[in-house]
């Protein structure tokens, strides 16, 4: 085979003074980077295979290891960046599409970082969340235009039959990650944490393992183009059903779970033969229009007796506002929008990095459009794609979201180090893998604890920020863009976001 032109991406520094040759790194690396030598007192490293996941660094008991980006190798060039050169070399060698995992890592503007929050001063009092209650409960689902109330009795009675709602104790939901793309233990951590904090997790398109049926009240199940594992009980056990049309990381693209990952348990969950590739087509072959979507929405509503909300998930693309309007009119109780920075287990790199628009702009436009058409209350907005902190959550809510999905943030909470190699199935952190040696590395008891802590910490922070603004319920902030100001954005960007520039006031 001809010599590869690629350089190792990472450099491993082993402090010889500190290394005790305990071989923990050797045992922990699924990429066979470290190797004990015949002479027992040294460990050697093969940098070519290193993906920079930092597992060995984390577990090294003497902190003898550092793994960092390898400097040099490619001659610096403003136009031909390392990413481009690496891509060309790889493709010239392999002749294939470049695959990657997780969300877009290009440095497109992140609008969350250009939005600032308001606080109360003098003219309106701020609230101390430690002394006064602040309400974070949110309800997702269609809201009524008006309520008929019977005032004749002793107490007023609501006569209107309310649409089914999802009750969230915190406006943060774990986003769709299928059992298959993530491990059983990772899914269990999410499901248990969702139940503990009073929110939901999403089954993804891979069906629901029978072990998770008891968690149904906190699970949103997905119906995607592959229809894996979709059957009556699957729809009925869940708290809501989500029809997945698109995904932020790969709008317009289907999915492909390689046969090696289709283990016995996954084949049981997805209802496909063991070791067969699980291919989700790019479109739903029965949905070629809004009218077709409406048919599926109502078919599902029939199947679940109109007892649970039905969501429709679309990727944030150029005409997202018009599409979302159509989706709402098709009967979706919740519209989920996934931005360009949304994660994935596997996607062509060129799609992940170049297709779609940032969620902030999409959210602002969709909210605006639905309001102007007078149909905003027909659906709740759930947004996804690059929510990194409680500040992002609260900014999203002020921009008009009803709640946010977190996927990457949850995985990072579980130990993910964003090495973007989910598609290899060799996740050293036991998250995006089905290898029994690796899946054991994620203890769901620890995973659940970490996720519960994360959501609890975020909810404290959200309460602090709300209190500072003088708002005592998250409902009062929803869509209130007066609480946001933009810094460092152009007039056009401010207009799209519907946010005033910092310094502008009444």
């Amino acid at each position, binding site marked *: 085979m001809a010599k590869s032109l690629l350089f190792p991406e990472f450099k491993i520094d082993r402090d010889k003074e*500190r290394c005790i*040759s305990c071989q923990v790194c050797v*045992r922990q690396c699924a990429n066979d980077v470290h190797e004990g030598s015949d002479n027992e007192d040294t460990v050697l490293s093969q940098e070519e295979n290193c993906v920079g996941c930092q597992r060995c660094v984390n*577990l090294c*008991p003497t902190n003898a290891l550092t793994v960092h980006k390898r400097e040099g190798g490619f001659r610096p060039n403003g136009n031909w960046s390392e990413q481009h050169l690496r891509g060309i070399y790889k493709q010239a060698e392999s002749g294939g599409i470049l695959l990657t995992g997780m969300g877009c890592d290009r440095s497109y503007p992140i609008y969350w970082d250009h939005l600032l929050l308001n606080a109360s001063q003098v003219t309106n009092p701020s609230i101390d969340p430690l002394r006064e209650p602040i309400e974070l409960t949110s309800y997702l689902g269609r809201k009524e235009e008006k309520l008929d109330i019977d005032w004749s009795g002793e107490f007023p009675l609501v006569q209107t039959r309310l649409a089914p709602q999802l009750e969230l104790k915190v406006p943060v939901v774990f986003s769709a990650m299928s059992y298959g793309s993530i491990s059983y233990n990772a899914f269990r951590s999410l499901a248990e944490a969702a139940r503990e904090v009073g929110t939901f997790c999403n089954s993804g398109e891979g069906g629901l393992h029978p072990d998770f049926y008891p968690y149904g009240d906190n699970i949103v199940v997905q119906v995607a183009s592959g229809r894996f594992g979709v059957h009556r009980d699957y729809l009925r056990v869940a708290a809501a059903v989500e029809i997945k049309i698109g995904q932020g990381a790969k709008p317009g693209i289907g999915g492909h779970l390689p046969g090696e990952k289709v283990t016995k348990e996954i084949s049981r969950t997805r209802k496909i033969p063991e070791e067969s590739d699980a291919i989700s087509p790019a479109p739903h072959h029965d949905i070629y229009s809004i009218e077709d979507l409406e048919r599926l929405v109502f078919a599902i509503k029939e199947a679940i007796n109109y007892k649970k909300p039905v969501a429709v998930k679309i990727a944030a693309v150029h005409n997202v506002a018009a599409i979302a309007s159509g989706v709402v009119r098709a009967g979706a109780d919740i519209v989920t929008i996934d931005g360009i920075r949304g994660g994935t287990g596997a996607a062509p790199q060129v799609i992940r990095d170049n297709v779609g628009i940032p969620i902030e702009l999409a959210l602002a436009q969709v909210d605006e459009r639905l309001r102007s058409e007078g149909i905003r209350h027909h659906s709740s907005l759930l947004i996804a794609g690059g929510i990194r902190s409680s500040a992002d959550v609260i900014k999203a809510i002020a921009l008009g979201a009803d709640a946010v999905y977190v996927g990457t943030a949850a995985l990072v909470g579980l130990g993910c180090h964003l090495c973007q190699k989910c598609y290899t199935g060799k996740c050293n952190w036991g998250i995006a893998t089905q290898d029994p040696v690796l899946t*054991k590395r994620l203890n769901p008891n*620890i995973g659940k604890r970490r996720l519960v802590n994360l959501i609890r910490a975020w909810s404290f922070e959200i309460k602090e920020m709300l209190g500072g603004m003088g708002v005592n319920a998250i409902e009062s902030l929803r869509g209130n863009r007066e609480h946001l100001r933009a810094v460092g954005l152009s007039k056009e960007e401010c207009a799209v976001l519907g946010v005033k520039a910092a310094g502008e006031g009444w």
Partner: protein
Amino acid sequence: MKKIRIQEEFCIGCRLCEINCLVKHSYSGKIIKAFREESPRALPRIRVEEEGYLSFALQCRHCEDAPCVENCMSGAMQRDRETGTVFCDEERCVGCWMCIMSCPLGVIKREQKTRRIASKCDLCGGEGEPVCVAQCPNEALLYE
């Protein structure tokens, strides 16, 4: 009596328990010194057993009818009346290895310090969590 419970489904086979046990029972108690400078190197009293993807860390179970205590001719191997821990009194151990012969789990080792001594899990002196439990990165060992 509190015992170390093994959850083999979460053992990741990293062997950090062995390393930390060794350090705990070394002269210095410091990891780099214990490995690089101390001679003879202390022995870990816990051992990770592996086959395929299964692995678990095994150490003395402190059996109720401990054969090692029964078979110890010098009375070095004994049970702490208060805590129930089976431990080896190093002063009295003569290195006859009868305990090793009789241990059904093979968790007693031959230590060559200044002389031959049987070495086994002492639950880190019975004070608090043993290091193998405290330092297991995946909580595969529980002390309860």
